[in-house]
């Protein structure tokens, strides 16, 4: 009798990984809600390379335009706004709102709010990683199922292709593909997926081979189930745990590889931000503005750690199940 384990009964590492990845995803997705409109506080002259925690005063005028000021104070029906050392007065009637904008994580060399940009970059980094993972899973599971089920020449050819593709170092393969294709987000996702399906195929094939001769598969064949039905309803559900565990690790790898590729300038193209390309942009200011390189790097690492914890946790879970039976 197995009881569905509740959240509290899950292994600690699995819970930790899910919380970490979930938190990163929520922050990335809710960025536009949590942070101010990046365009409103964009002011290269007044707010370039601010350290984390620095703040400016955001003056919104009645016509919707904004001024990012060092200070603003109200003086007898007018606002005295200081920006770049110069003071100007604005009639109170033209000022819609005055609010303090804090650059919690600083600003970059053209005055962009790093927190807002990290959120935007997170959507790209995590999104590209997740979509590439789906591509890798689709190709890899299909190839593994066919290879394991059919056997023979198909299997031999497919597995040699897998061996060959695994022997090419990932970044060399990706630079090669990036150079001969036109760069775009869709191409990047496709190319990342294409660089990562081989492991999935090998794993799925192994699972199919070990399940193929089992009695329940034989029974399914005996009652006339076709290969598609057997693959979908009998083989895959039983092979799911190792594939999901591998997929979690793979997600971490894909996020890392996307970061490297974007860091090299051959992944996500500007002005779109990804964590990797943000590090590349901040590289010039390494000595003076550490937050531009350190923060996106740490976020990449946290995402990969989260994925690794999920993978470890799934292993804990299956080990626990094996011990219980």
């Amino acid at each position, binding site marked *: 009798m197995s009881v569905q384990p509740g959240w509290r009964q899950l292994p600690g590492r699995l819970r930790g990984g899910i919380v970490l990845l979930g938190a990163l995803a929520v922050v990335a997705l809710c960025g536009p809600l949590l942070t101010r409109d990046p365009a409103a506080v964009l002011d290269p002259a007044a707010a370039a390379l601010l350290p984390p925690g620095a703040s400016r005063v955001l003056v919104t005028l009645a016509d919707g335009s904004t001024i990012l000021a060092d200070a603003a104070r109200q003086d007898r029906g007018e606002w005295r706004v200081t920006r770049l050392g110069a003071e100007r007065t604005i009639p109170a009637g033209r000022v819609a709102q005055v609010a303090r904008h804090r650059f919690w994580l600083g600003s970059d060399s053209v005055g962009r709010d790093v927190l807002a940009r990290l959120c935007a970059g997170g959507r790209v980094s995590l999104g590209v990683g997740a979509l590439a993972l789906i591509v890798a899973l689709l190709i890899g599971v299909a190839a593994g199922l066919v290879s394991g089920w059919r056997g023979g020449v198909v299997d031999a050819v497919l597995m040699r292709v897998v061996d060959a593709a695994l022997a090419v170092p990932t*970044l060399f393969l990706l630079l090669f593909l990036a150079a001969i294709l036109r760069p775009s987000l869709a191409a990047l996702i496709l190319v990342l997926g294409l660089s990562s399906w081989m492991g999935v195929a090998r794993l799925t094939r192994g699972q199919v081979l070990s399940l193929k001769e089992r009695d329940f598969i034989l029974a399914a064949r005996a009652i006339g189930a076709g290969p598609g039905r057997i693959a979908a309803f009998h083989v895959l559900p039983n092979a799911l745990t190792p594939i999901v565990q591998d997929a979690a690790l793979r997600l971490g790898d894909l996020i890392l590889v996307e970061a490297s590729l974007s*860091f090299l300038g051959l992944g996500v193209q500007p002005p779109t931000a990804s964590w990797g390309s943000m590090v590349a942009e901040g590289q010039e200011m390494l000595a003076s503005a550490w937050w531009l390189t350190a923060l996106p790097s740490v976020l990449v690492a946290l995402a990969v750690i989260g994925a690794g914890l999920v993978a470890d946790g799934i292993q804990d879970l299956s080990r626990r199940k094996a011990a219980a039976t």
Partner: protein
Amino acid sequence: MLRFAGRRLAAAVVLVWLVATVTFVLVALAPGDAASRLTDPRISAQTRERWRREFGLDRPLPARYAAWLGAAATGDLGTSWLHHRAVTTVLGDALPNTALLAGLGLMVEIAGGVAIALVQLRRARGRLDSALSFAALASYALPTFAVALALIGVFSYRLGLLPPSHMHSLAGEQAHGPARMFDLLLHLVLPAATIGLTGLGAVARYLRGVLLDERGRLYVLAARARGCSEQRALLVHVLPNALLPLITMIGMSLPFLASGSLVVEVVFSWPGMGQLMFGAALARDVPLLMGATILMTVAVVAGNLVADLAYAVVDPRVRL
């Protein structure tokens, strides 16, 4: 043993041939051919036509493939568009530099990983053990470029101790003998440390598991019963057995080493294969791209072969 080696060698050759063929097919399938992709629109149609003939693009695909494969097999990978020299010469200049950097990085990685795993084993599941386990996970999770930039930030910019880029300083370039060696070593420290630091986590994680398994075996108990100390049992009896599968693991991790050293070479301006590949990708230098990819695959496959053979030498069971 010879039959085993022969079989593995044949498989390796087939593998390299497959990779070479796939790179050729990918280039052939890519939108636009070399003559149209390479250059700006101001170049006239006649010039393009002449180029197409020079590159042999006017011939049918199978003929081009046969000619290219034949040339590649005899060590002719064409001429680099970027460097205007034979691809093999360009790669030949860079390969030793990459081998030096990646080799040293690998040594740092193994030494560091083994040391961490041994320290963890002294009190498994203790506080130090879990702290080091987390450090190992972080070492795996941190992007290579982040570690490289952090080291440059601290040791080059903050402390001014070590050079942040290139293989030699201007003075070192002209020096001879020990002075030149010392200059090279100084430039090697940060890039090799980067490769080592990003790789040691995986080694430590792997080795800790194997060591824990091995330590519970009966032969360890027997050694302890003979009066062998805990320390000695670990170092003399357990470690050699655990290092065996490590050979295979390192053989399989060679592609990661190559990818990691690519980023390191770019960040540290190290004149190796990775840097060449990067330049070739930016300039879309197709012959160099193909050459570098194939040569790096050959290096990885050769490394794998060496690891397999080394394993077969120390463990006769796998020769079957």
